[in-house]
């Protein structure tokens, strides 16, 4: 059956609880039966409006964000350090210890900031905003390992959040973002020795996509970005290092600086199309970011989306409103077909099952083992995503993480039925019929989706029927939740 290519809205009659669940999975971190029902009751348009919150309050700062853990030396300090370096062995040693201490403090702060963001995702009342921050973190990928200043990573994250519905703002601000400038070495891009790193990624990965510019454009763009540098935690334009002469970028001559260069890129048709591809990959289907590998039918749909983005001048509020209500988004060929990212899986499980807080170190390790350390993407390409998330190793981690969240049992520890600290009966609120079948269906519909056929539920029914204290007994529910989260269907959204 061919897929519906239309971005026009589904009729109100198709706005079912299953459709509401699909929206919650893709534009939030999922939800239990009650959350699905609440969203459904709002009706199609109000439901989607309720998720799009460009004016949401800013989350509290991480407690330990300290702008001065890593700071450039003052003039006096520089002189002092130079003296120490030239001094005897003991002075050099003292200098080395100072540097190591600063790095240690920075790494400690980094762990706090990672924890803080996961916590924001877990508790936020505007989950779509955090999904967008994740998207932009992956799109404008920057890693702490190279930046080596946790505060700058936090600052960038806040910038993504403040402008998460406005791609033009994001693109304009990323060339003035200290973390990015350091990550791609633009702080060393000067008229005397131009560094092409940022100019290249700006076109290839951030705005146009490969094949939509020439090597000469990169050279000229790099000159436009000369002098875009960093002073401690702030952007600094170093006029003396900037090359003010005329450049020709994508066929147009001008006295480009970095900002004009970005505006030139935003004006190209390739740019909204590229943004459409990224949005499509994030919200609709795992197509990857290589345009040539996208099937024809989907290319056409994405082109239409690109025109929509252009029409709205990169304002994603009306764009997402349309996407999330659309016939294409709700086509059965797109429902339950995306592989959940580790963040989506972990946060979604915590939010949906309302599991108690667990050891942060364990959770951080799980994220690392699943291949998604926040603020530390593997490269400027970001995470591969899609099927690359899943292999024989990560699949066990994904399943065992859910067991840990539900039971508190670490892989190497025995199970302690009284030590779970978790009351799963909250998930049955409002469910009157408590037969084994009704309980299983209630959980499976919310956690796996209504489309999962009866045959796939048979083993769960059998398990539930075998519980002598009833299927709604807390221990039976814990067992069911562990098995439901271990099913292949749970890895998808």
């Amino acid at each position, binding site marked *: 059956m061919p897929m519906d290519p239309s971005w026009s809205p589904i009729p109100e009659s198709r706005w079912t609880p299953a459709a509401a669940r699909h929206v919650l999975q893709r534009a939030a971190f999922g939800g239990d039966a009650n959350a699905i029902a609440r969203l459904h009751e709002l009706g199609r348009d109000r439901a989607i409006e309720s998720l799009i919150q460009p004016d949401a309050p800013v989350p509290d700062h991480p407690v330990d964000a300290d702008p001065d853990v890593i700071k450039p030396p003052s003039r006096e300090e520089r002189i002092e350090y130079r003296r120490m370096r030239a001094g005897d*062995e*003991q002075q*050099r*040693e003292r200098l*080395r210890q100072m540097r190591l201490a600063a790095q240690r403090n920075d790494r400690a702060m980094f762990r706090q900031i990672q924890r803080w963001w996961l916590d924001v995702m877990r508790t936020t009342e505007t989950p779509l905003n955090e999904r967008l921050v994740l998207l932009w973190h992956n799109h404008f990928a920057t*890693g702490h*390992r*190279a930046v080596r200043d946790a505060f700058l990573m936090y600052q960038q994250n806040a910038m993504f959040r403040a402008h998460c519905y406005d791609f033009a703002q994001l693109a304009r601000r990323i060339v003035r973002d200290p973390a990015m400038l350091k*990550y*791609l*070495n633009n702080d060393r891009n000067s008229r005397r020795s131009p560094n092409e*790193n940022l100019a290249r990624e700006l076109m290839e990965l951030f705005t146009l996509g490969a094949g939509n510019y020439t090597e000469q454009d990169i050279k000229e763009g790099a000159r436009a970005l000369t002098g875009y540098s960093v002073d401690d935690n702030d952007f600094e334009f170093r006029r003396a290092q900037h090359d003010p002469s005329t450049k020709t970028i994508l066929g147009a001559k001008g006295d480009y600086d970095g900002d004009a260069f970005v505006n030139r890129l935003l004006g190209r048709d390739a740019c909204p199309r590229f943004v459409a591809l990224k949005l499509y990959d994030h919200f609709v*289907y*795992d*197509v990857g970011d290589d345009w040539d590998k996208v099937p024809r039918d*989907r290319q056409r749909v994405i082109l239409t989306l690109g025109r929509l983005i252009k029409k709205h001048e990169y304002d994603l509020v009306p764009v997402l409103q349309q996407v999330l209500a659309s016939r294409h988004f709700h086509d059965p*060929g797109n429902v339950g*077909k*995306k*592989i959940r990212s580790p963040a989506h899986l972990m946060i979604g499980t915590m939010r949906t099952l309302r599991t108690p807080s667990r050891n942060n170190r364990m959770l951080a*390790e799980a994220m*690392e*083992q699943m291949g998604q350390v926040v603020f530390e*993407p*593997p*490269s*400027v*390409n970001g995470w591969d995503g899609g*099927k690359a998330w*899943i*292999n*024989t*190793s990560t*699949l*066990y981690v994904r*399943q*065992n993480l859910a*067991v*840990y969240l539900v*039971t508190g*049992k670490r*892989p*190497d520890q*025995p*199970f302690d039925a009284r030590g779970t600290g978790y009351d799963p009966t909250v998930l049955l609120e409002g469910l009157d019929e408590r037969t084994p079948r009704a309980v299983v269906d209630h959980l499976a519909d919310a956690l796996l989706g209504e489309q999962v*056929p009866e*045959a*796939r539920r048979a*083993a*769960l029914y*059998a*398990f539930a029927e075998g519980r002598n204290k009833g299927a709604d007994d807390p221990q039976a529910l*814990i*067992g069911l939740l*562990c*098995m439901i989260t*271990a*099913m*292949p269907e749970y890895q*998808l959204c």
Partner: protein
Amino acid sequence: MCTDYHPLSSNDTAATDGYGFTRRALLGAGMGMVSAAVTVPGFITRAGVAMADTSMRVSSKSGVPEDRVLVVVQLSGGNDGLNTVVPFGNGAYYRNRPGLAVPDDQVLRVPGQDGVGLNPGLRPVLELMEQGRAAVVQGVGYPNPNRSHFVSMDIWHTASPETDGGTGRGWIGKALDGVKVADGLGCVSMGAEAPLATYGKQTRAVSFASPENFRWTGRDLHPDMSKTYDDLLDTPLDQQHARRTDLGEDPLAFVQRTALDARVASERVRRAVAQRTNNSFPGSGLGRQLEMVAKMIRADLPTRVYYVNHGGFDTHAGQVNTHANLVRQFGEAIGAFHRELEQTGDAGRVVTMAFSEFGRRVKQNASGGTDHGVAGPVFLFGDAVQPGLWGDHPSLTDLLDGDLKHGVDFRSIYADVLGNWLELDDGAALGKTFRPTGLIRASA
């Protein structure tokens, strides 16, 4: 075992491309060592045992490349190369390290080798050398060295010193991309997190600190759950998922297939590791890891590359005892590993390579330690290894910013173990072709 081999018979011409090193660099000492080895009675006895064992193994497929295994030992933190392969004949060594140098009379002498010997903790390595199955390449590094642990380790893992940021893919992962290995077991890494080196476009290492974590832990809750989990996995998917989508395998079918693979892989690995070894292994972390690897090799898992880690080499302060212990643990674990491989008849199909992200500075610091340096030694073990001390010991006086200069690019060694040993596409994995070093014997 290597009596039929003589390095002088090699017709390889001297080749150097600025990265590799010349065949001439194989020191005369190495050649002496080979002949010395055959006169050691213990060696002949042990080899005799090993050969008898191999011939009795019906399933032995020696010589078939698919059967060959590479074991990578990562010495994390920056191993002090100068106290590992010790230039005891060089006055500059003792002048620069008055409190740290290995005393002359404790250095293990390598037969036929003047002025350079091994740390006393490496006696098992010396024995392997005498048997003609160990090589030490000296002065291995790369151009424009980076002294950050993270960056330098990334460079060794991705095999790309030029790029910053990189692709997030490693030399082993890229080499195994596109190679079909049963049950997703192409690469197994000991430790909770797989190292960057093992990441390919498709390749992911199976990684676990303990095999008990490489399984679904919900089985521990209740026997009924174990049964239900298996029933759920064995329930076929609806017919619609069997069809390919416009973007390849149906996502649900893909996850279900991976889950089935994982169950088989988990059972194979855990069954293998539950066996007992013939030899006792040291109780160190490295000893335990290599013990598990030996068991998996014996169980004929389809795994091509095993990755283990031995950490703690970042010896900025109070180095003497710490480093001596780490080196001794390394020597003991390697010794036990090779004794075991001999007895199981697997010695012929395993090559082990040990490396560290950098060496350390020539001069000791004020805290009785050494700071991050550059070039260091790489170890290779196995019957297929061209034995001896390779490369020149880096000069202790001709320094670059107080550091040793590297003589051998690490990627030329990667090229050898990938191309000549595993017979994988080393060019694709390394981004360019490096001349083989000759460290792997062509006739192996």
